[in-house]
């Protein structure tokens, strides 16, 4: 309202200096666009009047490459989409192809998949928390988060030899048995982690600057979330209790008890609280899972050459950033006819414009952080 008045005054009063929109080009090289995102901000002073996202700087054509690779060869490529949550990407892809082949991974493999995926969810949220806090100007949480993430990456490294792009799972199950002391490592991490989360909470949750910077910033209500297709913590922070781990249980999630944290306002603070609580829940899932890992095979009945029957399949999982879907069309050859990926970051990024309008430049940074995008996944 106040602005409408101001604009009128500017137009009617010729004695005032003429003003113009300032177009600020943020990125693709910018400390807090989380990769190579480019946002053109239309500014009035520091007030954002509109945005235009330019993406594609990290486009590698994963979907096209997949058409020229065998099913097994595609798996490492999907690891490189959301590179801070490679295990989750792999899980989604492997399960989609398993659905296409109509085989199931053996119980032992499924439980180990759950453990590794939940650890990956914690690691992904830790990267989010550290960088988000850094964007808002808190330097220290980043290093605490990286310290804990290191423990998770060490578990991955011991398990499959890789830390970041793990390629941990295979179509039909797992390639590697869990190493000796796997349960102990996971348990030690989980028991220690509760105390660590408390450290972040102490630094941020009650901090009045943090609350001031996040509360009522980038509000996205439930209806908008659904209209835009936003999923994951963004949707849950708006109060919608939708988590595929509960709604359409995959892997072995139906065996474990956990809560789906939800927020009320759908602002940046709620998204922060939701993700913090999700880390706690993931920790609980890991603790439940290592209690009884079933014995048995780790690989289902899958041939050396994967040749699914002609047809199509869509499978989606709850990745750390939201719903990650794979749509695969098979023409009964060894290579997929078409792979289409529904990346959560790409779709959540659509909400940026709606969230930042009317906020200040500083909030744009906070909102990009709270969306938790990974440009590798946005551009694929």
């Amino acid at each position, binding site marked *: *309202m106040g602005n409408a008045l101001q604009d009128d005054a500017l137009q009617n009063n010729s004695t005032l200096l003429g003003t113009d929109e300032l177009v600020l080009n943020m990125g693709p090289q910018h400390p807090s666009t989380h990769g190579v995102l480019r946002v053109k901000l239309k500014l009035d002073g520091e007030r954002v009047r509109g945005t235009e996202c330019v993406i594609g700087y990290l486009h590698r054509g994963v979907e096209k490459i997949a058409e020229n690779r065998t099913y097994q060869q595609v798996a490492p490529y999907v690891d490189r989409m959301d590179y801070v949550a490679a295990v989750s990407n792999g899980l989604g892809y492997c399960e989609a192809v398993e659905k296409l082949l109509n085989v199931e991974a053996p119980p032992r493999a499924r439980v180990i998949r759950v453990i590794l995926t939940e650890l990956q969810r914690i690691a992904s949220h830790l990267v989010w928390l550290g960088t988000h806090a850094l964007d808002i100007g808190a330097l220290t949480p980043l290093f605490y988060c990286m310290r804990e993430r290191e423990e998770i990456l060490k578990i991955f490294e011991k398990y499959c030899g890789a830390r970041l792009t793990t390629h941990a799972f295979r179509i039909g199950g797992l390639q590697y048995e869990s190493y000796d002391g796997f349960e102990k490592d996971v348990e030690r991490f989980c028991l220690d982690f509760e105390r660590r989360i408390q450290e972040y909470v102490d630094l941020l949750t009650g901090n009045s600057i943090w609350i001031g910077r996040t509360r*009522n910033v980038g509000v996205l209500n439930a209806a908008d979330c659904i209209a835009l297709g936003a999923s994951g913590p963004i949707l849950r922070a708006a109060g919608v209790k939708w988590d595929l781990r509960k709604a359409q249980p995959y892997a072995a999630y139906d065996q474990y008890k956990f809560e789906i944290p939800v927020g009320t306002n759908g602002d940046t603070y709620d998204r922060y609280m939701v993700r913090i609580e999700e880390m706690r829940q993931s920790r609980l899932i890991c603790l439940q899972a290592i209690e009884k890992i079933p014995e048995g095979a780790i690989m289902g009945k899958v041939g050396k050459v994967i040749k699914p029957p002609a047809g199509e399949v869509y499978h989606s999982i709850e990745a750390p950033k939201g719903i990650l879907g794979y749509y695969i069309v098979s023409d009964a050859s060894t290579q997929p006819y078409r792979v289409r990926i529904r990346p959560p970051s790409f779709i959540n990024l659509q909400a940026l414009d709606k969230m930042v309008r009317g906020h200040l430049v*500083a909030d744009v940074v906070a909102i990009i952080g709270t969306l938790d995008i990974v440009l590798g996944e946005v551009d694929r």
Partner: protein
Amino acid sequence: MNPTLHAVLDFLQTWWAELTCGVVIVAVVPLVAGYLVLMERKLMADMQARLGPMRVGPHGLLQPIADAVKLLIKEDIIPGESDKLIFWLAPVISMTAALTSMGAIAFGPSFQVARDINIGILFVLGVSSLGFLGIILGGWASNSHYSIIGALRSTAQLVSYETAGGLAIISGLLLSGTLSISGIVTAQQTQRVWFIFLAPVGFFIYLVASIAETNRAPFDLPEAESELVAGYMTEYSGFRWALYFLGEYANMIVVGSVATTLFLGGWLRPFPNVRWLNWLDVLPALIIALIGVYSVYRAGKQPVKIQTQFMWGVALACFAVALIYAVPWFVGPLKFVIPGLNGAFWFLLKVAAYIYVFMWVRFTLPRYRFDQLMHLGWYILIPLAIVNVFAVGVAMLIAANTNWNHAVVLLLATIVTTIATLVCAVFLVSWHDRRTESASTASLARDSYAG
């Protein structure tokens, strides 16, 4: 004799002390600033569970020198579309202002870098706020959007926080009754109390305002890295950038010195009037010698020979300084330098503690948003500062006209001030919130530059 030469000699004869001091400032302060950066990085590393610089010299002790060399030999880039003269001039203004204001600061009794100006505090404040001119001009001359936003933020921040800081200083000046820097310290000696205990609210406001004035987190909006890349410094690189950086750290020393002088007893040791604590005067020499002993101890543990040698060098330097501190105790005619040396030690210790708080705050707190910064400045700090000045004045009047204890009255006044201002602040904030809410569309309507 040649008249020109004669004039030069005459000039030197009158001003040799000031000239020497000027040269010393220009030579020493950049080095100190460099080591402040190292201190900051080490402290940050300590609080963030990592080691910080470790490569150049033992425990990274030579890092500042390596950084300076790197910055000096970098390519000098001036953006094509910039206003070249102002672009060149701006960092120089920033640094000159910071270094010049250092001139009036008293590091010890009769150990003032320049001479004891009777408006010393005003001089320091005036000259050091000129540094903002460098920031604003630099941001404008760069001809870059990030720079100009940083410069605009800096302007608004300066206006808001210089006001609060200035008012906070007034409470100290009221207590001392003088603007002269050495006079303020002497007043704290004769009144037998540091002014921080008489006007804690004033000190607190000055602390917050000085963080904002030096553009440091959580008020580092002009150069907010995650938002504006580097704010007004975005287009600067190499040595010009180093000048800005130097100016910023030199400015930290200046505000630290002002706070120390006004509120923390300047060069006075703790309890300067208590006879039986006179042994504290030996502490400076002792502490420096102990640092030397520790360096010797660490020297044996260095992995590389050159680092061992370097640690020995540090130890020797410490012993040399300790010797300088110790000798006058035993040599009668030199006794007069003891207060000066000890004064410098205590002064620098207090300044370092003050700067430590700056750094500590930086690692702990997230950054304010622009409207929140203005809100804090205009709705809380400035009213608080005004009420504080008023309360200190009233308390002094009461103390002067009754025979109640001076300090007790002032403390009472402080408590009353704090409560009264907090009530005011809460009222103002809620009024402000109501006003903005009634303007509906919440944050959309607020114009942060209007305060």
